C-alpha cells in the first residue's frame, strides 16, 4: 500500500493560499527530500500533514495508508503513525520530557492494541533511544525543550521519533542549527531508523544533510507547488545553481 498520496493539495493560512496544488506520492521504505526557497510552503505542508488547527485545506486530498488523513485529529494521526519533527520545537515548561513522552507512547500503544509500558520498561526504552542521538539522559528528565540549545531541541525531536516509532516521519529542517558533529550524530540516528516499513520526508535547505541521509527522491517546492522532482543528483544541482533557474522552467505534470 502507498504510504502517502497527496493530490492537488491547496491550503490557506490566515486566509492566504500557501499551498497551490501540491502532488506527492511516498511509498514505504522511501526517503523523500523536499527543498525550496524560504516561504515556499514546506513547513505549511508539514503542518497540514500533522493536522495543525488553522491550516485550512481548500482543495485536494491526502490519503495516508489508504485512509483520508484530513478527517483525523492531530492525535489520531500521531496514533496512526504520523510524526512531525518541528522546525521550531516548542518549549513546554513544567512538563518533564520523559513524563510527556511516556503518556504519548502509551496513548499510541493503546491505540495499536499493545499493552502500556510501565515506568521501568519505558525508562529502558528511553535510555536506548537517547543513545541513538547521543542525547544526554539529563535532558530527557528536564522540562520539554526548556532551556535546550537549538541543537539539543533538534536531537530531542529525533529522540521522540525513535521512541514513538512512526510509520511516516516528516522532519522539518532537522539539520538547521546543528554543527557538523551534531549533524553527523542526528543523521546517523535517522539512518538507523530507516526501514522498509517506514517512510520519511526530509525538509531541508542544504545538500549537506543529504550527504549523510541519502534520499531516494528530491523535490523542489516553490510557491506552493512541487516544481521539479528527481533523484539525489537534483540536490547537488540545486546546491550549485540555487533555485532561480527553476522559475523559468514549466512546472512538471506533478502539479495540476
Amino acid at each position, binding site marked *: 500500500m502507498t504510504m502517502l498520496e497527496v493530490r492537488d493539495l491547496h491550503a490557506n493560512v490566515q486566509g492566504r493560499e500557501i499551498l497551490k496544488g501540491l502532488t506527492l506520492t511516498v511509498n514505504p521504505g522511501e526517503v523523500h527530500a523536499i527543498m525550496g526557497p524560504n516561504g515556499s510552503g514546506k513547513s505549511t505542508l508539514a503542518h497540514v500533514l*500533522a*493536522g*495543525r*488547527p*488553522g491550516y485550512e485545506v481548500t482543495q485536494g486530498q491526502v490519503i495516508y495508508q489508504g485512509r483520508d488523513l484530513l478527517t483525523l*485529529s*492531530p*492525535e489520531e*494521526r*500521531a*496514533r496512526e503513525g504520523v*510524526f*512531525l519533527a*518541528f522546525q521550531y*520545537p*516548542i*518549549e*513546554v*515548561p*513544567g*512538563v*518533564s520530557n*520523559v*513524563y*510527556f*513522552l511516556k*503518556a*504519548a*507512547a502509551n*496513548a*499510541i500503544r493503546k*491505540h495499536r492494541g499493545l499493552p502500556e509500558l510501565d515506568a521501568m520498561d519505558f525508562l529502558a526504552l528511553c535510555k536506548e533511544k537517547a543513545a541513538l542521538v547521543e542525547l544526554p539522559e539529563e535532558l530527557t528528565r528536564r*522540562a*520539554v525543550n526548556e532551556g535546550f540549545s537549538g541543537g539539543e531541541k533538534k536531537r530531542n525531536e529525533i529522540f*521522540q521519533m525513535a521512541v*514513538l516509532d512512526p510509520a511516516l516521519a516528516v522532519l522539518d529542517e532537522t539539520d538547521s542549527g546543528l554543527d557538523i558533529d551534531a549533524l553527523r550524530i542526528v543523521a546517523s540516528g535517522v539512518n538507523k531508523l530507516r526501514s522498509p516499513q517506514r517512510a520519511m520526508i526530509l525538509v531541508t535547505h542544504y545538500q549537506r544533510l543529504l550527504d549523510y541521509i541519502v534520499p531516494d527522491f528530491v523535490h523542489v517546492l516553490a510557491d506552493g507547488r512541487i516544481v521539479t522532482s528527481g533523484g539525489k543528483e537534483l540536490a547537488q544541482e540545486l546546491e550549485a545553481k540555487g533555485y532561480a533557474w527553476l522559475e523559468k522552467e514549466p512546472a512538471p505534470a506533478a502539479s495540476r
Partner: protein
Amino acid sequence: MSTVEPAAPDATTPAPAPAAAPSAVEVRETQREASRRDEIAPWLVALEALRRKGEPEWLAAQRDDATARFARLGFPTTRDEAWRQTSVAALARTRFDNATRGALDDALESMPAFRFGGAFAGREAVFVNGRFMPELSSLGKLARVRVRPLRQVLADDPDALCGLIGAAADDDKHPFLALNLAAFQDGAVVEVPERYTVHGPIHLLFISTGGAASHPRVLIGLNRNSQATVVESYVSPRGAHSFCNAATEVLLGDGAVLDHVRLQAESEKAYHVATTATRVSRSATYRSHALTLGAALSRHDLGVRLEGEGADVELHGLFVSDDAQLHDTHSKLDHVAPHGTSREVYKGVLGGRARGVKNGLIVVRPGAQKTDAQQQSRNLLLSREALVHATPQLLIHADDVKCKHGATTGQIEDAPLFYLRSRGLDEEAARALLVWAFAADVVSKLKVAPVRESVERFLRERLPAAGAVPGTRA
C-alpha cells in the same frame, strides 16, 4: 441557616418632618445607610450573645473598640475600592447559627480526609467552628514549642497576650478583621523559643460545619533565630454552608525563619474571609504558600511588613477556581527597612464562570533603600466565561530600589497544545497537562509533602483528563 428578611419599618420611630424634598443622591445615601444598618443589626446581636464574662480588661476594651468599628464600617460594598470586584452582600444577609450536632458529625466523618493520613500526628491542633477540640488534637511531639489554644492562654495567664493581639493585623479599615477581633472565641497560639528549630510541620486544622460562623484567631511567634513550618488548613465538609472569618498574626524575631502554608479547601458553598498579617524583623525570612482551592467566595488579605534590615519574604500563591467560585487575594508587601527582599508569584487557574481577583501592592517607605521587590501575577483562563482582575500597584518613596511587577492573563496556548497532540495525547489530556505545568512551580515549592500531595491530588481530580497528569513522583 436563614436569610434575614429586610427589616420592617420601625413603627415607633416618628417620621422625619417634611422638609425640602431631598435630592436623589441624598435619598440614595439614606437608603444605603438604612440597608447597611439592617445588614449588620443581626450580626451585632450575635456579637452581644458571644460576649464572655471574665475576659481580661484589655481584651474586653479591644473587643469594644472592634465592635464599634465594625458597627461604623458595616460590611464592605463594591463601592469600596478594596472590594470593587467582590460582593459580600449575600454573605452579609445570611444568618449563621451555632452548629447542629448533625453538622458536627459530618465534620467528624470527613476528618480522615482533612488529616493528611495522620502525617501531622503529635503536632496537630484541631478546631471545629473556631473552638479547640482537645479530643481530636494531638500535640505530643512538640517538645519545647508551645502550641496552645488561645482561650486556654487567656485563662492561664490573662496578660500574656496583651499587646500581641492586633500587633500585626491593623483592622482600622477592614470590617471583617474588626469582626474577628470582636467575635473570636478561640484559636491557636504558637510560640517557638529562641534558637530552636522545630522538626516537622505544625498543623492547625480548622473545620467549619454547615450553617456555622466562626472567627478563629491565630498568633504565631518565632523568637530570635528560631525556625518552624506551620500549616494552617481550613476545610469544611462537602455542601456545608459555612462562614469562616479567620485572622492570623505572625511575629518573626531577628533571624527567624518561618515556612507558612495556608490551605483553604472549604466546601463549594462556603464563605471564607481571612487576614494574614506578618511582621518580619532583621534578617528574618518569611515564606508563605497560599493554596486557595475551595469555598464559593474566598477573600484573603495577606500583608507583610519588612521591618528589620535584610528581611526576606517569598509569597507563593495558587488559586484554582471553577463554576461560580470567586477567589480574591489582596497582598501587600510593605518595605519599611532597608535591604529587604520580596518575591511574590501568584498564579490563578480559572474555569467555568469563576471570578478571580489578585490585587498586589508593594510599598517602599522612605527609609527602605536597597529594597529589591518583585511581584508577578499569572492567570490562566480555561473558559470564555471566567474572568480575572489582576492589579499590581507600586508605591515607592525611596530612590535606590529595584522593583518589578507584572501581571499576565492568558489562555492555553495553541502551539504547545498542538505540539503535545502531535505526539498522540488527546486534546483533553494535553490541556490537563498544560494546566498542571502552569501550576507546577508553585506546587513544587511546597516542602510539606502531605500538603503538596493533597494539592496534586486535587488538581488531578479537577483536571478533566487526569490520566495525563503526572503521579506524585513521575
